[in-house]
């Protein structure tokens, strides 16, 4: 159950399926978008809180 299904990094990036299509681009672009959205909102809120704290001081 716990063995990695891809042999190399490039294989993991491509994610070739049994029908021969490479699905890596879809999976990784979604991963990228999700990480970007979440991290940007974290940075945004931290920055905003800092900004408003400075103003109040």
């Amino acid at each position, binding site marked *: 159950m716990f063995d990695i299904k891809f042999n190399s990094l490039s294989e993991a990036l491509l994610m070739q399926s049994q029908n021969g299509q490479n699905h890596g681009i879809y999976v990784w672009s*979604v991963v990228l978008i999700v990480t970007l959205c979440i991290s940007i909102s974290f940075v945004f809120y931290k920055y905003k809180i800092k900004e408003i704290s400075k103003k109040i001081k």
Partner: protein
Amino acid sequence: MFQVNRAYPYIFYLSLAIYLFSLFWGLFLTPEDFVQGNSYRIIYLHVPASFISQSLYLAMAIASAVYLIWKVKLSVYLVRSIAPIGAMTTFIALISGSIWGIPTWGTWWVWDARIVSTLILFIMYLGLISLHDSFNNYEKADKFLSILVLVGSVNIPIIKMSVEWWSTLHQPASITLSEKPAIDLVMLYPLFGSIIGFTGLIACLVILSSKLQIIKREKNKSWVKDYV
């Protein structure tokens, strides 16, 4: 607020760890899906986001009911701070869904019941934000926001129902595609993990966002000045 502040790093790192671990599990350790190939791995990102996007609305509805009945100011701050995060998760759900659609359905957009109702949800989130921001008097804005959230929450099941009803006639083929294939336990564990982890991360975002709202709205209070 101080207690939440102390708990915040624990929640953050724990849920981040759970999320990353389940993502790793889902992306690399689970077997390939027989029908959809490797593209099904998007499920570990897509399902948590769409789950959260709806539960956030529910949370907003509860909070605005609390505001309208008991006039608890904190709950309307919560409503206002959830709205942009809800919009963001709905956006993630929409985008990841449509990217997932390219390899599996052959098209990035289908007029399918779930997609349309998610899109409507997204528009509603944006409408809530723009409504609240267009008023300078916070008390008015709070009232209107909570009324609209409540009215919208009555509407969401109706929208879902009617949209589903509608699309079964027009697009009988796509419906079966959007339904998940009976999922194997091996794939289910990391899915649960990613849902829990994502929920934790979003909870952290909500905490940050409501902190911002509280500081913004109570900036004249002395305890806020002491705090910052």
